[in-house]
């Protein structure tokens, strides 16, 4: 799949990794791909995003505010501080995990599967992997040989994932964004013909 990405689409993946690392997230998700995508171009995908009024800086703020990072997890120093006032964090963790499962006290889902595909050291979330698979399918549907930014955006828009939550948080209907991309692609083909 990766070998089918255009150089610009590859930059979306590497840009997404940088954004995830900047936010101290421990996996590459659809949200990072979306924000990285907005920083490419100009191309059909970014023109459609601008036409719909998508603001990548705001999306990054929404992410930083709402998605916990590994830095937010309770640390050994927190455990020591709690012990100083008589709270046993290990016991609290044991009891919450007994009721709610492993990692219940952690703010974000962990992505440490050994077999998970990695890029630049970061694992993909299942949704991000699926978005790229859907992007490939979009490229095939549109009879393109390689996966460009517009196919990545169409792939992201096919999912109900963090990327679409970020779009909806800006009062943008993902379906409208999708039709803007399709319209842009139509114009491109007409010009090329």
């Amino acid at each position, binding site marked *: 799949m990766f070998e089918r990405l255009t150089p610009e689409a590859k930059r979306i993946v590497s840009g997404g990794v940088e954004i995830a690392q900047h936010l101290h997230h421990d996996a590459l998700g659809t949200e990072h791909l979306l924000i990285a995508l907005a920083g490419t171009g100009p191309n059909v995908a970014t023109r459609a995003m601008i036409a719909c009024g998508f603001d990548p800086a705001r999306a990054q703020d929404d992410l930083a505010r*709402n998605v916990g990072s590994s830095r937010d997890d*309770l640390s*050994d120093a927190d455990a020591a*501080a709690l*012990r*100083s*006032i008589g709270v046993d964090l290990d016991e609290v963790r044991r009891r919450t995990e007994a009721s709610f499962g492993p990692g219940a006290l952690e703010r974000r889902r962990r992505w440490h599967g050994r077999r998970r595909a990695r890029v630049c050291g970061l694992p993909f979330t299942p949704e991000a992997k699926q978005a790229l698979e859907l992007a490939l399918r979009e490229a095939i549907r549109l009879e393109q040989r390689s996966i460009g930014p517009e196919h990545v955006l169409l792939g992201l828009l096919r999912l109900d994932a*963090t990327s679409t939550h970020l779009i909806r948080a800006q009062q943008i209907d993902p379906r409208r964004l999708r039709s803007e991309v399709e319209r842009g692609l139509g114009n491109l083909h007409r010009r090329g013909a």
Partner: protein
Amino acid sequence: MDNAVDLASEATDADPAVGLRAVAALRKLLDRLEALQVDNARALGWSWQAIADALHVSKQAVHKKHRERRLFRRGG
């Protein structure tokens, strides 16, 4: 002496740095527990009003604090 034991013994000296650090950690723990319990209550079909009553806060407060977070909580 390790860091943890240092902290625990210094707490008895009423050092504000240690006490405040403990309060910050407790707040972090409280936030995690609240998020966990709110998510569980919603999963079990509790209304926002019922959750707010149990937490002794207004429905608006609990909604504002947790609605957006819940939208993003899965990550991915």
